[in-house]
């Protein structure tokens, strides 16, 4: 491990990459066609009070299509949620509310809106494409004997972002993000994010995400379990009809 680390370090010193290249490498990182897992999301407020949701999730195309069924809390069991990202358009989101036996389309036009009351906003969940952001490599850093690029991402004005910039620590070996700091429009630190990955079927899959809203003192912990990849999920799964069909788990 040490040897490989030194080799990587030497290569990176010999071939320093710019921010844009690093960003492209992150985008092009090898990813599965689809992922199935169980998500446990715990929200903790500044007074230490907790709320936990458990869901079955299936996603495709780098999370551009995702369907979720709620398992817990008991009162929410059966609620289902479908999200489909469409290039240059608002996301399509639909919900199945079993108590009303109705599907409703929901919309949040505010990028800064929280996703399910968590500290993750819709903007946090969307990919940072090259077109709408400026990237800059700030410096290299070694943490626990591993080399990281420290990448600054500044959203362009037309993106109308809720952030002024993000600073990410990118693992040089596998181009995964170890941690990230996001700054609000005033330039003050808003969120800190920490990621953990498991190596599953030759992919680095995020299995734990912790997001801390520094200004509100609120924390969100997302843990993914029962992860399986490349299950050839059919396109028809990401359809309104599927919302009503609670999957076996």
């Amino acid at each position, binding site marked *: 491990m040490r040897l490989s680390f030194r080799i990587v370090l030497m290569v990176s010193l010999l071939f320093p990459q710019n921010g844009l290249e690093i960003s492209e490498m992150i985008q092009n990182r090898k990813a599965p066609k689809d992922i199935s897992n169980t998500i446990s999301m715990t*929200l903790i*407020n500044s*007074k230490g*009070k*907790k*709320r936990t949701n458990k869901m079955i999730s299936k996603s495709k195309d780098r999370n551009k299509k995702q369907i979720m069924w*709620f398992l817990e809390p008991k*009162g*929410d069991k059966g*609620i289902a*949620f479908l999200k489909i990202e469409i290039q240059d358009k608002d996301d399509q*989101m639909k*919900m199945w*509310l*079993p*108590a*009303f036996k*109705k599907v*409703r*389309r*929901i*919309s*949040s*036009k*505010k990028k800064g*809106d*929280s*996703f*399910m*009351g*968590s500290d993750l906003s819709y903007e946090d969940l969307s990919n940072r494409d090259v077109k709408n952001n400026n990237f800059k490599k700030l410096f290299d850093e070694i943490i626990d004997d591993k080399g990281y690029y420290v990448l600054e991402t500044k959203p362009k004005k037309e993106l109308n972002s809720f952030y002024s910039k993000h600073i990410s620590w990118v693992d040089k070996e596998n181009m995964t993000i170890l941690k990230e700091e996001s700054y609000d429009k*005033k330039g003050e630190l808003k969120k800190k994010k920490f990621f953990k990955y498991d190596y599953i079927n030759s992919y680095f899959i995020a299995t734990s995400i912790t997001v801390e809203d520094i200004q*509100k003192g*609120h924390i969100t912990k997302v843990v993914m379990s029962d992860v399986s990849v490349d299950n050839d999920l059919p396109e028809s799964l990401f359809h309104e009809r599927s919302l009503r069909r609670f999957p076996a788990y």
Partner: protein
Amino acid sequence: MTKSKSYYSSNSINNWFINQSIDHPIRTIIFSVICTLIISSGMQFLSIDDDMMKMLPKNLNSKIIWESLQDEFGSTEVIFVAYGRENHKILNSKSLSDLWLFSERLDKLETVESINCISKSTKVNNVDGFIEINDLQNKQNVNKNDVKEIQSYLNKNPKIKKQLLSLKEDYLITVIQPRDSFSLDNFRDQVVSAAKPLFKNYEVYLGGTAYVTGSLPQLIREDVRILILSGLCIMISILLINLRSLRGVFMVLMLITFSLIAMLGSMGWLYKITNSDRYLFAMISTSMPIILLTIANSDGVHVVTKFFREMRSENNLKLALSKSMDALLMPIFLTTLTTIAAFLTMSASPLEPLIGYGICLSIGIFWAWFLSTLMLPSVIRLQKWNFKSHAISKASYFEKLANQISHLFVNSPIKSLLFGLAFIVIGLTGIHKVGIDVNVANFFKKGSDIRDSMDFMDDQMTGTMDLRIRVEGDMKDPKVLDEIEKIQDYLIQEKRILLTYSISDVIKQLHRTFMDDNLKYETIPQEKDKVNNLIMMHSMSSDHETLSSVVNYDYKVGLITALSRVMTTEEIFSFVEKLNIYVKKFIKEKIKIDITGFIIVIRDMAIMIIKSSLLSIFLSLFLVGTISTLFFKNIAWGILSIVPLGTAIILNFGLMGHFDAKLNHITAILSSIIIGVGVDFAIHYISQFRRLSKKKGNVNQKVINEVGYPILLDAGSNMGFGALIFSAFIPVQYIGGLMIFAMISTSLGTLIILSSLVEVFKNKLTN
């Protein structure tokens, strides 16, 4: 009396004190000044705080509930800002653009926790079967269509509209919540500086408990400072006219100033050492300097007038000074002891600042005694006095008046007593009419800026007083939500309550929106799963804080907020009682309900003030009587010493009743002024009576001649504080008026009732 250098009194303690002033005046002055400076250096640690909640004891139920509400739902004290032009529709592109800018400015303020206005509100709409959660105003520059959309959304949701727009739609409303960690005056200043320059072309109204509480300390202090200075000027004039000696007046003022700074310094030191809220300089503490001033003035006046009278007969500085001090040391000490005992009774008060108030005032009184018995005679000793000056050789106006009074009362004691008793009867008939009003809104005169703003908000908006009901139960349970709705329906029946809102309102709105905006569904769904589903749908695209003003994080506690027009304390009493009865009778579901809010806190404060005042009065009377009995070794003197106090208290509270002056946490302090000054007069009278009773002639006449003058001069000069009548604040006006009555009642209580009683029972007393 032997006139040797070191023997001035037959009493060894008196002798020591007099010796320090006459034989070592410079040493005594230097020592006194250094000690005063050391104590007063604590003024740098003096901390001003007017948080009403800090006044209340920690175990007070409404305070505990209030604090738990603040913890669960954030600060409930807010500032309302309304801007617009009367009778001109305010919903237009320009005003909304200004509102957007205002929100942006507020966002940047460190003291601001949250903002509620059109620019910051979210709308939940059903658009073609599409549940859309979006900003109500999504950009700064909105066009006519956007304005129409906003208008139509508000029309559809009248409860939301009431919070964001005035009743005639001519003012836009912003409600701003402060962060817990900042003081309200700081919060208020920041909000005002953000609002005023931006809304120059509008009529602007500011209100809310945070605004009033944040503005009040500074306003009162500025107002009282000017009026106290005026009072001081009047006091100095009266002293000057009667003493006719600049040096004499300067000496009294020096004593007052040194005592005042020592008291404030001790308060600062105690706060620094203990870090206790008791030693914060709160609004209630504003009266401390006035009380100490009257007491120190009394000590100084007694010494200076006695010295002048002795100089007139002795023509010898040392002899006149030693005779004066020999006659005054014991009564001054005794008045100090009894007054301190009376003020220390405040330690039993349930109100936190009153404990510090009593302790610090006692330190000030002690220091006034120290200075009047050591430093003041030393300063007199160092002066060169002209024996032929008018100040010394001729009687002053008040002295002549005292002589006339002495003739009058001594010649017809029974008539005088009956005359005094008639006043007591007048007082007694008014006591039951004394009303309590601790509502801060009523502190302001009609026509003042703050009162105008409050009246505007009462008439045009949802009012500025709030009632909070904390409901503990499952906030997703339709039965609980129904009970909440029932309470809201009951609340809104009270004509002063203009708006109520709770989680039930949010669920009803979500239900209607979900069911294709059909008004029929603006109800609470009767299945728990449906409520769950609606909340989940809402949370899918909103912040975890969106519902934080109506329900806590785990949906176990809900908050009903009722906004009302200004109520008097009596109206609050009766309303809360009715609400409690309703809740007990009609709320069947197993939920725990606690009523709190600024209104309830005020009610509890009123109860405490009454308890505290009564306790303080009775304890003071008991202590003064006991100490006097012990010192004079006769229970009759003990009882007589509290007669002027008792009569003055009856008369003053009676007059409060007759003149409809309300009892509140500021006017309740009046009993302390009466005790402080009344004890002083009575003890001086009794001491001189006992001293002079050993001599031949009409004792009572001699006593009135002797102490009547300083009593009248002290009372007359203290009446300068009647200038407080011109205050902009109603309670301060009351203090000004009642100060005059207190001085009249305490001095006449001594010179009429006490002297008449002594005259009637003099044979028994002298035997």
